[in-house]
């Protein structure tokens, strides 16, 4: 799995690519969780660009759950954007769209997390 990071204003956009499963979940988590806490400390938000994610297993969903909890406790914001159809279906079934905010486009997500609460 590849992870690329870029910035859009006060938002960090992290784009994983490939499958987020048992094999790659730890790598994803080790990158994502510190990113959220440091972003929150700097008053910034995190958007996950999922356009490159082909599949997410329950191990991957667990990372998103941890990310959501981390965001909640550190006062940060996190959103997911650009889900592929299969990943979108997984989000629908698992109701993870209720755990993290899902957006169609990355820009929508950036705008949403940047908006004052």
């Amino acid at each position, binding site marked *: 799995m590849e992870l690329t990071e870029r910035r859009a204003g006060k938002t960090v956009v992290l784009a994983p690519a490939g499958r987020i499963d*048992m094999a790659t979940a730890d790598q994803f988590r080790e990158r994502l969780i510190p990113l959220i806490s440091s972003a929150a400390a700097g008053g910034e938000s995190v958007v996950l660009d999922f356009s490159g994610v082909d599949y997410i297993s*329950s191990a991957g969903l*667990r990372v998103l*759950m941890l990310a*959501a909890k981390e965001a909640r406790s550190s006062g940060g914001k996190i959103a997911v954007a650009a889900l592929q159809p299969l990943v979108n279906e997984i989000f629908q079934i*698992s*109701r993870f769209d209720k755990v993290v905010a899902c957006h169609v486009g990355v820009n929508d997500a950036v705008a949403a997390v940047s908006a004052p609460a």
Partner: protein
Amino acid sequence: MASPPDRPAAAAPVAWRRWLASGRGRWLGILLSALFAAVMLIPDPGPLPAMRLAAFDYYQVWLPRVRQSAPAVIVAVDDESLTRVGQWPWPRDVIARLIDRIAARQPAAIALDLLFTEPDRSSPERIALALRKRDPAAADQLAKLRPNDELLAESIRRAPVVLGVAGIEQPIDRGASSGAVTVVGPEMPLYRYTGVLRSLPLIDSEARGHGMINAEPERGIVRRVPIVAYVGGEPMLTLALESFRIAASVRSFNVSHERGVAHVQIGDIVVPAQADGRAWIHFSKHDPSRFVSAADVLDGRDVPDLLEGKIAMVGVTALALLDQHTTARGEQLPGIEIHAQLVENVFEGALLSRPPWARPVEALAFLFAAAVLIMTVPSVRPRRSFTILLVCWLTFALAGFAAYAWGRTLLDPTAPIAGVTVLYGLMLAATLVGLDLQRRQLSARLATEREAAARVTGELEAARRIQMGMLPTRDSVLKTERRVELFAMMSAAREVGGDLYDFFPLPDERFLVLVGDVSGKGLPAAMFMAVSKALAKSAAMRRNAGPADLMTTVNEELSRENPEQMFVTMVALVIDLKTGDLVYCNAGHEPPILTRRSGETVLLDDGGGPPLCVIEDYPYEEARARLEPRDVLVLASDGFTEAMNRTGALYGRERLRALLESPVRRGVDPTVLGHEIVAAIKAFEAGSEPADDQTLLLVSWRGGI
């Protein structure tokens, strides 16, 4: 008291093995190489002299010197001469005549490999003495004749004769030093013969030169002869060199030395020497053309100009006289031929040498090869490293032979060969010991791991039995409740799994069915599954509440103690057995599929919320549906819908729905349908191992009453 399990004694590495194998034997190799190189530098005779000398001898056997000149001719007292002239020793007047005959042929010098230490017994005055009583007249007549020794002394005086002198190791002095030698310069580092054997002063004093006749065999083999030594207190050249001196009419010779003899100079001739004053003779084959029979010379039957300008060397060759020596080539040569070969060596500049740098060069060559072996042997296969050893052997042998053949330099291949061979053997042994050590450690570790694995397997097997025992069986429930029909199966990807299902009757003629899936797999998931299942059952029974209440309660309870941050997807359905009314709540699980008798399928995906433990205080919502008799509810875990075939394609919910909607299966019993679904999934997977736990639960309501 707990004690660590016993380790097998064989697995404990013995200290010496560990030391031998340390650095895969490289430290040991370096130590040994340094030691061996130091030993190689020990001066003559040094280590393993026999091997070295044997190698030098073989050079000469394979490639003897090719004789290019004939500066010396041997006047041989051979068997023919003994037959014709009479038994040896000959009367000295005969020898005097022989010298006269030789001198008449005008040789450059006449070297006599003969000693005349006692007066001649056959001299006339001696015979006169013996005949005195028997025939005084004849005795008087004889007494008038000149003594043979005088005749010999006279002949010697007239010719350029070099007389043999023998250095001996006993402190006796047969014939005092000539006193004719003057030494200029300091004491020289020459070999000292404590005693000397010379001819009678009468004869000895008449010779123009005196040369050593010592050949000094080493263990019976003549390789190098002293070319200059102290004999009876005087420095003396060997017979061959002294002959050159007399032939060239040079009055003196120089010995140049600095920490050992470097060379001997006689006029224009420079003869290189070893440090101890010896020289290695480069032997050629025995050559009869070097010889002329003494008898022929005496009779004037020799080739007239054979001796002219040459060094005539007189010596005995008759086999009975036993002056035979074995040379480096293994050939038996008369002593005089060895002196003649030395003359040729000096004349042709063909002497062999073992220069002072030979030992350091050999030691360096060994060290270089040793370094290569130390680097390679431990890390390459034995066949490869043996090839390297062979290359070392060949290189040393060829280099030694080439130095001999083209440089007349004696380099020793045997010490480096012996060194690398010992080193190779040791390195190989150390490598093998190291490998053996590794193997033992590995097998010990493997045994421990197997033991541990067996224990874990045993425990997992027990855990599996417990987990499977926690799941309700169809028969136990249906015995008392005839209004539902069920099919349930669970298959864990590992020994134990994180899937769960449950079904039991509730008060008020309701029936609860639930399926769940803990995130993760194996033992942690199984433990969390057990807790989830127990909580769900107690929540359902205690409160007698709807599925949303159940979810909310279980979510709260589970979230409270969840150190591993796991989550559970769960779907619970409550069927009113009287009416077929269905209330359900789905916490992030695969939605149930309601299969109507007509074949139509409905996805029950309303309400619900995220998986349990994800959001602690999530308000789960219920949704409703209505069952017709013989409708079938299909609940699966994602292990089913995400079952993969070999190409990585997922089975998918649509395939499942298509299967359920197929007219063939319309109105089929849940048990039959369940088995068909399992078979279809297995066929799809086509033998690839399921990656996830798989759970399938089918329920049908048979209608009220």
